[in-house]
């Protein structure tokens, strides 16, 4: 289990201070906050791209070659214009869960793209390939930074289904997103970042009843309940 204790994070100066939480297995944690509040900075710190400026990070192997089994990180930067074909790229993932990769290729309809060079893909196609490459890595925890960017609504639904399935298989997720409808559909736990601190750490019901989102984003949200008992934000 990944555990953060009093972490200060930032590129040069700390943009986040005293961040403590843990990522329980079988749980999807959503990281919410306005632009530039430090979501990516925090994810980078957990993934090892940035070193924590202070505090302790547990549950991730410090050796980079063993870290791949603990954590898979789907970062925000789009895939580069490489001429490598999608199929060959996906074969480079290690440790790879082959059965899961096949399933993901079906769900995100990558089978027709396997022979295409990545440089020739559209933005949404690249995002699908990136998500699959990250989710197919056999790791116990996964960090996704803005996973729904450039995705068609159909694939957002597929993503929600996959996340739900993998969560039940015992994985833990930390997802930073601006897509609040996606967040409340799939998230079990919500962390709100504001003014370099965690402002709230709640489940879905608390998020709704305490109007946390209104404070976080300076906007009045209306929660509409649909027939299936789930909520839509507007």
């Amino acid at each position, binding site marked *: 289990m990944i555990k953060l204790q009093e972490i200060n994070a930032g590129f040069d100066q700390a943009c986040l201070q005293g961040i403590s939480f843990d990522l329980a297995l079988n749980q999807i944690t959503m990281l919410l906050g306005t632009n530039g509040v430090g979501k990516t900075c925090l994810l980078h710190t957990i993934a090892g791209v940035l070193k924590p400026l202070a505090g302790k990070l547990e549950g991730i192997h410090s050796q980079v070659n063993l870290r791949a089994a603990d*954590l898979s990180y789907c970062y925000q*930067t789009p895939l580069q214009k*490489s001429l490598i074909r999608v199929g060959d790229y996906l074969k480079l993932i290690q440790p790879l869960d082959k059965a899961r990769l096949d399933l993901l290729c079906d769900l995100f309809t990558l089978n027709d793209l396997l022979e295409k060079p990545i440089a020739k893909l559209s933005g949404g196609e690249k995002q699908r390939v990136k998500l699959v490459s990250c989710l197919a890595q056999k790791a116990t925890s996964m960090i996704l930074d803005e996973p729904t960017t450039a995705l068609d609504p159909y694939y957002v639904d597929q993503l929600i289904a996959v996340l739900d399935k993998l969560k039940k298989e015992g994985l833990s997720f930390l997802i930073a997103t601006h897509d609040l409808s996606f967040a409340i559909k799939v998230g079990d736990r919500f962390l709100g970042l504001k003014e370099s601190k965690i402002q709230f750490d709640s489940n879905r019901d608390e998020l709704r009843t305490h109007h946390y989102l209104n404070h976080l984003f300076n906007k009045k949200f209306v929660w509409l309940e649909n027939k299936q008992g789930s909520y839509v934000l507007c």
Partner: protein
Amino acid sequence: MLRLVILCLTLFILNLMFGSTSLSVNELIQSPVLWQLRLPTALVCFLSGAVLAQSGFVTQSLFKNSLATPYTLGIASFASLGTIIGMTLGLEWGAVSLLSLVFSLGSVFVLLLAFRIFRYDSLRLLLLGVALSLFSSSLISILQVTTSKMDLALFLTWVMGSVSTVGYDSVFVLLISFIFLMFVSFYYIRPLLLLTVEGDDSYTRGFDPVRVRAIFLFVVSICVGLLVSKLGPIGFVGLIIPHMTMRLVPFRGFSIIMGNLLLGGSFILLADLLNRSFLSEFGLPVGVLITVLGAPTFAVLLWKKSI
């Protein structure tokens, strides 16, 4: 792939058979011209082409930029500066090579440090490389004008990139850098290919991108440093061959490395063959012909939107 092997072998054999003196096959086998002159030259052509092409592929992949080659990054220019200083001081060849190595390693150190300061922005790094190149070229010019010790004819041949004065010691030196580069390329092929696709945030794929980049640049600078001190700065191969390879062979570990070797080797073998068969009376260094062939090829690639 098979076609590339045949192309390279054919050019190699043609290189052995043709030259300024025409000999029959029987005469050739018994002649010292073959064993003392043509064979080492052909080997040097192949090895230098292979090393330059693979080095170009490595730097282009590491910095995700088609322009990033040991030449544009300033590594080769610094190696040249080291060599020229050595030549000016009238040092032995071994010491000259060492100086060239020290300078190319120095430039890599500067590049890695700058890349960190630039927050991994390849464009700024390339701009710095251009500045480093121009700086060392101007220092070379100053040295050339102010010292009387240097043999100008030798300098001119060297600065254009020549394979005409080589012997087995060059083959040996190039073979070492070739094996070194191949070993590291095959060993780190998965990180290298992943780095062509993923950003510098890929810290959870089982390798450290910063470390892999440092190792590769270190190896490339050693290879290029040795090569430059022996043959002079031969440009263009590292720039265009990787682009051609990527279009001719599948983008997979083994094929891409082999493609670079074969195509890079073939390119310099061809340039040297043309040079010795048709232009032998002028005694042109092969580097000139490489650029003459390379520049239009590059323009055609650009025209066809392959880059």
